[in-house]
């Protein structure tokens, strides 16, 4: 079945460590890709998105993601995490031919805990 996979369900890091969260999708064709963050008790907030162009996308709060078409991947990275990055991170895909009405298919999420 077509899906979005986030392989790391829980990640624990110390402050200043580097972060990479994996995201793979199984849709063919042109897709739009997103990373959202959800801080405890808050709503989904867009970190970054990729529609076309440079496959290395920079987002807010020092996050970036790289689209690798051949690997169907869109991994999220941050060189040095902070305690305030503790949150749940969701990868999402706008699959092709979704009627043009733009539904998002989400991965299961990765819960990141950063220890001081």
């Amino acid at each position, binding site marked *: 079945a077509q899906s979005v996979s986030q392989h790391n369900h829980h990640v624990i890091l110390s402050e200043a460590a580097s972060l990479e969260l994996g995201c793979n999708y199984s849709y063919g064709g042109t897709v739009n890709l997103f990373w959202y963050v959800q801080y405890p008790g808050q*709503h*989904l*907030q867009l970190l970054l*998105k990729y529609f076309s162009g440079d496959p290395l996308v920079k987002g807010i709060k020092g996050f970036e993601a790289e689209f690798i078409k051949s690997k169907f991947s869109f991994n999220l990275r941050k060189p040095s995490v902070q305690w305030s990055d503790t949150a749940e991170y969701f990868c999402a895909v*706008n699959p092709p031919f979704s009627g043009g*009405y*733009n539904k*998002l298919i989400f991965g*299961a999420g990765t819960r990141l805990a950063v220890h001081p």
Partner: protein
Amino acid sequence: EPEVTQTPSHQVTQMGQEVILRCVPISNHLYFYWYRQILGQKVEFLVSFYNNEISEKSEIFDDQFSVERPDGSNFTLKIRSTKLEDSAMYFCASSESWQGAGYTFGSGTRLTVV
């Protein structure tokens, strides 16, 4: 920055009761969506709405669910007869275009069915 506003933030209802969750999308957006997130699970698409009609719905969105844009600003999700398994966080979203420009989520309504 423009926001999608959802009310109430938390609603508790008895099984079998009808609930209406309310959303005010961003004013110049034309595409509206509902998603839900059962505790500990992924965010799931429910329905998209454009030009005063449903454009796509998931298999979750059965006859117990309906959406409406009763006036120029509100976008509502109605659950006709709630079940325990409807307990979840419900997110409204809106976007400017079908290509996803400005796709913005609201802060959610936590629905608890008892």
